[in-house]
């Protein structure tokens, strides 16, 4: 595939991520913050998001396995996950977190378990998609091109 095709594929793919609600304007802002002084800003921040999320998802699973469930603790974790997902623009993850917090407030264990499953699913989707996006970027850069804004 030549450079122009690669760039077109990149733009189409990125646009689809917005259309399907995987990403929102916060992600656009991240890209705009990247410059020559911080050429890897987006990848760095997204990596932080992956690390944070994986840790939080594990904590959540553990917390929901307990005999006596600590809903405050669960809520604190979900609040964090909601915060970081919204900061990078992972909109679908953020939305599930909102529902998750409501179930926490109701102390509804089934609702929480359902949300955990959902948020895991959405997280893994957005992770895969972002990784694909970064891969496309790398291909463009390797081919000597620049990333279309």
């Amino acid at each position, binding site marked *: 595939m030549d450079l122009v095709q690669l760039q077109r594929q990149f733009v189409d793919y990125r646009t689809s991520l917005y259309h399907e609600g995987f990403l929102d304007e916060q992600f656009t*802002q991240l890209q705009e913050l990247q410059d020559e002084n911080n050429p890897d800003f987006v990848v760095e921040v997204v990596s932080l998001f992956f690390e944070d999320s994986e840790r939080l998802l594990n904590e959540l699973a553990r917390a929901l396995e307990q005999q006596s469930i600590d809903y405050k603790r669960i809520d604190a974790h979900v609040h964090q996950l909601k915060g970081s997902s919204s900061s990078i623009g992972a909109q679908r993850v953020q939305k599930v977190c909102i529902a998750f917090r409501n179930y926490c407030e109701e102390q509804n264990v089934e609702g929480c378990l359902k949300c955990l499953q959902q948020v895991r699913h959405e997280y893994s989707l957005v992770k895969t998609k972002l990784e694909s996006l970064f891969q496309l970027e790398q291909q463009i850069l390797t081919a000597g091109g620049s990333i279309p804004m």
Partner: protein
Amino acid sequence: MHGNIWVVQNPQGSAQSMALVIRFQLRPSVSITINELGESSDQPCSNSLFKGLQVLLADDDDLNRAVTRKLLEKLGCSVSAVTSGFECLTSIGPASSPFQIVILELQMPELDGFEVAMRIRKFRSRNWPLIVAMTASADDDTWERCSQIGINGVIRKPVLLQGIAIELRKVLMQANKV
């Protein structure tokens, strides 16, 4: 400055009281145009309000801290970042602080933003440094509580460039009026 100064003398001829009147001209408000890309418009001084502004940023979340820092730097601020309420208080210190604005996440473990702000206001003056809170909460109660503690402004999370710029500008303008 078109002012006036006079002295009221007592019967012995020495000064009993002095009065000084100075007339200041109101400066036109600084207008900052920020388009969707977050870059300033063709006014070269449009972001001069933020240029070199000494900011202390306190947020325990690594990701949010990295993003907010970058946003502030994009506006032209000079940013120092800390990860806890305690570190924040230490950085401000008892003596004169180099920071003009403290940007403070309200929900931090151990020592939250409310506590930090209360302590800053207790031991330092009412308006120095300026304090701007950051929070994901939308409610009026939060703003009410912030206002009572002496916090000068609130930024909603997730943070957008325009959101920070507008609130910081408002806070700086209000401080200049005092």
